[in-house]
């Protein structure tokens, strides 16, 4: 049995991030059962490696790094979800150009229900989805995301830019379809 002190330490430093780990697992895997398993495996792995954890280490970033490796090793081989958004088209495009006359403050966004927002995030290609989820849904800094993903900050910035613009475009198209806003006549 683990000593109470070790467990208390882990429960204080790591467990508060359980919901974050679960939410990111859910967005990465797209499946709540897989997300449960990934979360459990991540927490167990973190607990077993706990003696290597040093005070001052960013526990959240560390847990998310473990989660991501777990996901890549175990789940990504089975690619059941194909990305549906072409992020490469995003260079130089902004939704603002289409809405600046009708709705420059982006009020139409508020009519879109949460479920559609998450669907739109899930439709992003993985590396862009990952950046958007860690930044916009979980509030990590660029440096933290770069640490978790293991790429330079500049790469994260570029993925965030393209991911956000692609997400905006998907949501805008949805809003036009639903009649929340008029599409620009071309």
């Amino acid at each position: 049995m683990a000593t109470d002190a070790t467990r208390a330490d882990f429960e204080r430093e790591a467990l508060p991030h359980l919901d974050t780990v679960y939410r990111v697992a859910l967005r990465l895997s797209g499946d709540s059962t897989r997300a449960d398993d990934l979360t459990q495996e991540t927490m167990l792995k973190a607990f077993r490696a706990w003696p290597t954890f040093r005070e001052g280490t960013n526990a959240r970033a560390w847990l998310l790094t473990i989660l991501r490796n777990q996901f890549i090793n175990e789940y990504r081989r089975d690619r059941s979800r194909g990305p549906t958004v072409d992020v490469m088209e995003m260079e130089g495009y902004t939704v603002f150009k289409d809405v600046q006359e009708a709705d420059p403050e982006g009020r139409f966004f508020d009519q879109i229900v949460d479920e559609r927002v998450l669907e739109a995030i899930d439709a992003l290609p993985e590396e862009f989805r990952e950046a958007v989820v860690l930044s916009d849904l979980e509030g990590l800094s660029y440096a933290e995301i770069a640490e978790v993903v293991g790429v330079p900050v500049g790469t994260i910035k570029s993925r965030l830019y393209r991911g956000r613009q692609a997400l905006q475009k998907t949501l805008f198209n949805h809003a036009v379809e639903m009649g929340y806003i008029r599409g620009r006549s071309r």
Partner: protein
Amino acid sequence: MSDPVFDCRAAVDHLYDYLDGELTTADADLVRAHLEACAHCFRFFDFEAAFLRFIEARRRGEHASPELRRRILDQLLSEGDPPAP
């Protein structure tokens, strides 16, 4: 950012760094000064800020289930002490 001409292009290049609070104070001041002088960029940044707030508001929607939390705590209880490094 040593270029004395901080134009729309330069401001837009820093769109998300600025909105995410990732710029140094000096660079953020340059962007802010541009936004004060350029109504078009101001509106564009305003729109993007609204978009980010909108996404952020979806932040805390989901939680690990009580069953999952219980499962993890039970597993930690049955684990031996992690090996010392």
